[in-house]
């Protein structure tokens, strides 16, 4: 399934969600609203296609982690942009992000 949420395109299969585009203030609000049903199961979010991001994107990652936890499921992030991890590191929370490069 493929759809566009503002500046981000979403490609979804059984377990994985592939995001493409810019993860910023303009796109995250819409993406958050549309993503709430994603976390009724364990989920992998792949950021390979994200070319731009900032603290708004980091806030979204944290919110997704919270939602998954509340629903009792696991979330993993693949190929988180270095930009986001840099900001996470600046705020001392990089080790809390379930990120791996694949």
């Amino acid at each position, binding site marked *: 399934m493929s759809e566009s949420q503002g500046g981000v395109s979403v490609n979804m299969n059984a377990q994985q969600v592939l995001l493409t585009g810019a993860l910023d*203030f303009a796109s995250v609000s819409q993406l958050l609203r549309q993503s709430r049903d994603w976390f009724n199961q364990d989920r992998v979010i792949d950021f390979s296609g994200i070319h731009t991001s*900032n*603290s708004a994107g980091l806030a979204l990652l944290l919110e997704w982690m919270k939602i998954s936890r509340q629903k009792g499921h696991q979330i993993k992030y693949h190929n988180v942009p270095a*930009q986001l991890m840099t900001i996470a590191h*600046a705020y001392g929370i990089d080790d809390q992000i379930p990120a791996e490069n694949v």
Partner: protein
Amino acid sequence: MNKLLIQDGTTLRGEIRISGAKNAVLPIMAATLLCDGPATIENVPHLQDVTTTVTLLSSMGVQVVIDETMSIEVDNSTIESQVAPYELVKTMRSSILVLGPLLAHYGKAEVSLPGGCAIGSRPVNLHIKGLQDMGAEIEVKNGYILARAGRLQGARIVMDMVTVTGTENLMMAAALAEGTSVLENAAREPEVVDLADFLNAMGAKISGAGTDTITIEGVERLEGTRYRVLPDRIETGTFLAAAAITGGRVKLKNTDHTLLDSVIQKLREAGAEIEFDDDNIILDMHGQRPKAVSVRTSPYPAFPTDMQAQFTALNAVAEGTGTIVETVFENRFMHVHEMQRMGAEIEVEGNTAIVRGVESLTAAPVMATDLRASASLILAGLVAKGETEVQRIYHIDRGYELIEEKLAALGAKIRRVPH
């Protein structure tokens, strides 16, 4: 709550990069409330006070994003409220800086009074009076400053005392006022100049910043811009003092020696060899013990009060006796008691500390009471025999970016541990 453990025995050597100035970036972030369109601020230090300001702006509905270089982009077009609540203002007095911009751009502001401060009385009545002189109706009620205005009107404002945040608040308000304002007995600090430069980059017409008379010709609107904040002169001075106290040699990059002439002069008196090279400052003590110096704090360009505690630490182990006269804040010697726990010989009489240098201090658990006091205790810990434990280091996180990483890069044995 974390604490810092500092081992003695290191002569600081190496190079570090100085961060953007905290006391410049905070008013500039407040000034982004004045413009139409997004504004981007570069060279932003990663500090608790910056995070608090981001939180404050966000609480009003302002859109704030941070990128991987820690540049901050602010877009106030989404603003929903002009309230600075007590819960935030009580943690950071400089939150008062949103008062002028909110009133000037939106015609109203509701800002909590800051309350008391550990280092002395810092009233905001001059901010209020100045805005009233520009036509604002202001009431103080239930701990809040409630301000309303149509378009502010230019006015000649003579400030009873030199106040940096007062100058900044009134300068920001006047930028959008109708007519010309003149601020007399204005603060001359470089951070005031940086704010004026930022406002001018947005289309303001401000002249005289850096002198005691600032003229602001009000404009109809300001436009967002991209701006790089100046280097932090107090961080620069602190690391220079750290190198001097340990007899070391350091190169501080991305800074500006012209911002701290008075500090450099005193360090040279203490025996430091100091050279400049583009944006770098190189200090070399050649392994020597510093000589005691006497300082008197006063508004810029005189010796800054924000460096007083650090020079108290320097004098504590220097050769000879030095006096430290504090004329700006009436209770800024709280670090003295903690240094005395480490064996420092200091007598305080009124606003003067007489410091007799000792051969060495001894490590002790000590407690930070404010930002610059915490820095001075770290400096003392670098040379106190044994392992010094500095508690309540949340103070230092308000004003120093990655201090233990930077000191470690210069060879210090310092680490942060949970308390």
